[in-house]
């Protein structure tokens, strides 16, 4: 039987104890490539995590009294579900009309996308990237490129701040991770940080939007 | 985590050959 090694936030331990299927691995769309990727839902707190895997050749694990080939290490980190919702909103946006969300977030290949509709404060989230209309008691949404770019700009700025505070090397030159210059931040230009942050965010948005963001 | 790949998943008497240290 294959064993998997995961690094998870500690509070997720409680999720699997509090309710049956408290933690669910689901396959959802990767908003950049459009292909499937693994995500983790915390059904208690209604939080979404992306799963990244550390993969290098020629590794194995000793796990208790067993050996497991591959040596893969999986990380579950919180991810903003709006990136995934954007995938469906941008597609529907081409139709140019306001639609109910349940009609937009539909996917034959990744039917678990409906779990995204269970997320808390969904309406608050959607306001960052859509125009909203209310008719009767129902809400209708239309993708807004202008609002999305403003939202993504905030993401880029947050990412720049995180890159600086974590001393990530964003310069074009090759530098050993063991080399600590006096002040990493002043050595790398602001433009380098923005370019790097844009690149990171682009791993979570469609190519066309990435190009628009770059121009923006 | 080992710096080599043992090409199998199976029981292994790790505690007989290894003494863990932190």
């Amino acid at each position, binding site marked *: 039987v294959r064993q998997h090694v995961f690094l998870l936030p500690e509070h997720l331990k409680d999720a699997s104890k509090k309710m049956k299927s408290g933690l669910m*691995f689901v396959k959802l769309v990767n908003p*950049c490539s459009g292909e499937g990727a*693994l995500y983790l839902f915390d059904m208690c707190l209604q939080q979404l995590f992306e799963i990244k895997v550390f993969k290098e050749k020629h590794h194995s694990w000793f796990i208790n009294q067993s050996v497991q080939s591959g040596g893969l290490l999986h990380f579950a980190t919180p991810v903003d579900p709006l990136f995934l919702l954007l995938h469906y909103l941008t597609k529907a946006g081409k139709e140019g009309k306001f639609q109910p969300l349940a009609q937009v977030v539909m996917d034959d290949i990744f039917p678990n996308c409906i779990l995204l509709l269970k997320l808390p404060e969904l309406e608050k989230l959607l306001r960052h990237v859509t125009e909203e209309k209310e008719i009767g008691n129902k809400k209708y949404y239309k993708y807004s490129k202008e609002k999305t770019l403003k939202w993504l700009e905030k993401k880029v700025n947050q990412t720049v701040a995180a890159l600086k505070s974590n001393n990530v090397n964003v310069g074009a030159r090759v530098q050993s991770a063991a080399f600590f210059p006096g002040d990493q931040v002043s050595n790398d230009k602001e433009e380098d940080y923005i370019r790097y942050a844009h690149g990171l965010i682009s791993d979570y948005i469609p190519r066309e939007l990435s190009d628009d963001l770059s121009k923006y | 985590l080992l710096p080599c790949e043992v090409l199998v998943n199976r029981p292994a008497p790790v505690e007989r050959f290894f003494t863990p240290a932190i």
Partner: protein
Amino acid sequence: MDLSELERDNTGRCRLSSPVPAVCRKEPCALGVDEAGRGPVLGPMVYAICYCPLSRLTDLEALKVADSKTLSEKERDRLFAKMEEDGDFVGWALDVLSPNLISTSMLGRVKYNLNSLSHDTAAGLIQYALDQKVNVTQVFVDTVGMPEAYQARLQQRFPGIEVTVKAKADALYPVVSAASICAKVTRDQAVKNWKFLEKLEDLDPDYGSGYPNDPKTKAWLRKHVEPVFGFPQFVRFSWSTAQTILEEEAEDVTWEDSATEEQEGPGRITSYFFHEGARARPRVPHRYFQERGLEAATTL
């Protein structure tokens, strides 16, 4: 022979020595070097030196030291005890090279073969005697490899000393015979009292002679091979006997520099400039993830 230090840690190299007799610091001395346990696939190899004043060589001979291989274990133990008893003119020192040290040296990425290990150990022991202020003027060594080259190397290392390297030196020079006895006695004791680090189940204490062509030793190796961990560290993994059994009985393991690893051929350089229909380039993750060996998981 107090081997408690070896019993505490039998994974590396262990040096043991007698006190230096006062007379050996005053008078010119002959020093002999010999080894025990080169051939076996099990247990340590021991290098020993024995030294005494030139004026007392006949006294050493009178102890009836001879080539240790011609003596029984009991006779060797007796002779060693006698050397210690009458030891106001005989000193000794030895290096116990564990099977683990032998294996890791011979199997390291930078190869350190058994001859080099032997030469360096012998030279190290001679140096030790000099550092202890033993007045060494003559050194006699049983050869490992070509005697001429070995002698030249040792002579260059110890220019003020007359160095003689000869085959069967243990039969020719009493100091070498005495060193031979020290080495053999130590090896026998180390093997008899070997503390297995591994918590082995059903350990069979009868492993035969320990030599690779001994059917009992081979059977013992086959019995004690573990498919993931191989052998206990009592075994010299670098011996072909051990390697053959591992190939047959143990699980396959690949390392970064495994020779059988398939390499991806380099692409044509034009592929970097033109879109070749059949060669789709997948989108690569951002540099942040690439540098850290991270990618999106698609399946468990």
